[in-house]
């Protein structure tokens, strides 16, 4: 018979008797021993509570700092991390829109053509000598 087969017969007489004897002895412990065990149990539970409290105290500052950092990241993060707008690119897009639209471009609305026409007339009708004299007068004054 090997160990596995023996293990199948858990409740052999000697095993039953030893178990019942030991269980009875555990139930009939002296009062002093039971009291000491109760004290030990309470001490163990107090240690558990103390360690839990200590762990909370130890991690509370770190948690507060982490929460503050997270809040700062949430508040400030998107503005800093968002890519800046590129004016050139935006302008190029507007140009493409303008060029591709069917509406005719009104590019000369701000140009003063009358001034240019007057200037051309003045330049063509004015005597050359006058201009040269004016220029010479101006140079003699200097």
């Amino acid at each position, binding site marked *: 018979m*090997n*160990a*596995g087969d*023996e*293990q199948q017969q858990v409740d*052999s*007489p*000697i*095993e039953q*008797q*030893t*178990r019942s*004897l*030991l*269980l*009875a*002895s*555990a*139930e009939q*412990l*002296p009062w002093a*021993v*039971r009291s*000491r*065990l109760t004290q*030990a*149990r309470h*001490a*163990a*539970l107090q*240690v*558990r*509570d103390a*360690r*839990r409290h200590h762990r909370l105290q130890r991690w509370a500052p770190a948690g507060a700092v982490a929460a503050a950092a997270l809040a700062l990241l*949430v508040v400030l993060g998107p503005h800093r991390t968002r890519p800046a707008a590129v004016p050139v690119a935006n302008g190029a897009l507007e140009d493409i829109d303008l060029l591709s639209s069917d509406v005719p471009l009104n590019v000369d609305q701000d140009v003063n053509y009358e001034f240019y026409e007057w200037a051309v007339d003045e330049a063509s009708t004015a005597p050359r000598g006058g201009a040269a004299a004016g220029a010479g007068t101006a140079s003699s004054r200097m």
Partner: protein
Amino acid sequence: MAGFATLVSQTDLPTLRKAHLREIQDGARALEAFLAGVERKAFRIAQIALRHEADALDVVQDAMLQLSARYASRPAEEWKPLFYRILENRIRDVQRRRNVRNRVMALMPWRGGEDEDETVDAVAQALDGGPTPPVQLESDEILAALERALAALPNRQRQAFMLRNFEGLDVAGTAVAMKCSQGSVKTHYFRAVQALRVKLGEFRT
């Protein structure tokens, strides 16, 4: 962000706090119930292994403290094997200290008899309680014989027998407590039963 705000607004924080406190209290109650359930058996296991009441109480208290401090957050079903592993480690520590002390004392023959009173005979301890009825006396004698037989077993056999037979751990739990394979547990247990059967043959019915 909006989801978090919604979650916070929809969650009742005092309720969360109460639930957390309730969880802590439940955990403490479960641990206390566990310790109350194992403390007597643990004491008897330690007492039989060490044959010394004060040392047995010390190792049980150490095991309780260590379980509570280090493993209370583990699932409750893991507590028993862990507790008995700690207990067996403490028992072994005490036995090693005794061995070292005995070796040192053996080198100093003029102090040889000083600590003899620390080893308490289980029979004498059983009889120290004053006059007992004859039936109780007979039972105590049987128990004392059983304790002597158990104490005479090799450590691993005694551990396997006490954890399996007395504490009621299954093979897997005993293997965790003894930090060995399940096959080893079965072997140790089988040999322990064989040895006890030889020594306590009169127990057989």
